[in-house]
């Protein structure tokens, strides 16, 4: 996994365990708009030329094609804006921490991270008929102290993500304890 992905600020000895996006159903409402708009535009071209060939002269057809082409450009740009908003919203689980990158539109980007040493508890929640069928929900990571909880919103297979974070947190704590023990033994010697 780590060879495929690389993010800015990644440490030299840090490996990426998993990259998590929101469930695809989350952007399906936007994509349905894109799909139907495209279907309508393509369909109207065929309808005009097939069912009303005499009603449309060459000038009107040129103008109609120009309007259609303009709408296709808008649809294409809109699709990628939706895609950017979805794909660049990502949670990266590494061997050391969880990095949350939130992309809101084109001009707002927020990055936060949580070290496994500060993880206190992890819970997963699937709420509703469609989330149950599609298997997506929220994972909440409770942090130590008064810090804000880390929330993975509408992610696929939330229970597996919860288990993964618990396992990595446990491994991290065992690692810290082992290094501390070794340092104590080293001092005694």
């Amino acid at each position: 996994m780590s060879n495929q992905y690389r993010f800015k600020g990644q440490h030299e000895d840090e490996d990426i365990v998993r990259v998590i996006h929101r469930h695809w159903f989350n952007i399906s409402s936007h994509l349905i708009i894109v799909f139907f708009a495209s279907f309508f535009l393509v369909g109207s071209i065929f309808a005009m030329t097939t069912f009303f060939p005499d009603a449309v002269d060459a000038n009107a057809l040129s103008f109609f094609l120009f309007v259609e082409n303009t709408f296709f450009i808008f649809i294409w740009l809109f699709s990628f804006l939706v895609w950017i908003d979805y794909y660049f919203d990502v949670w990266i689980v590494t061997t050391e921490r969880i990095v949350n990158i939130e992309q809101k539109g084109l001009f707002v980007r927020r990055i936060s991270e949580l070290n496994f040493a500060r993880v206190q508890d992890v819970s997963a929640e699937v709420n509703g008929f469609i989330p149950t069928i599609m298997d997506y929900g929220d994972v909440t990571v409770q942090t130590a102290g008064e810090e804000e909880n880390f929330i993975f919103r509408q992610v696929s297979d939330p229970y597996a993500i919860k288990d993964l974070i618990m396992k990595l947190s446990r491994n991290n704590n065992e690692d810290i304890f082992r290094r501390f023990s070794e340092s104590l033994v080293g001092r005694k010697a």
Partner: protein
Amino acid sequence: MKAVFGLLYAVLFFGYIVTALFIFYHIVRYSINRVAMIFGASLFIIVLGILLVSNAVIFFSLPIDAFIPKNTWF
């Protein structure tokens, strides 16, 4: 008359280019997967290029004078 429509079209075209540049910049700058970045950026630029060129060709072939009534003051 053609000049006015040409100017309006130029503004619209400039808007397309600026939006496309922002999208392209985001794809290239913030992708964490290199393969997906190359694929996404290439697909976006190629399709948009085709659409923009065809849009410009169709616009400049439009008989603008035929759409405006003869007694229009501008």
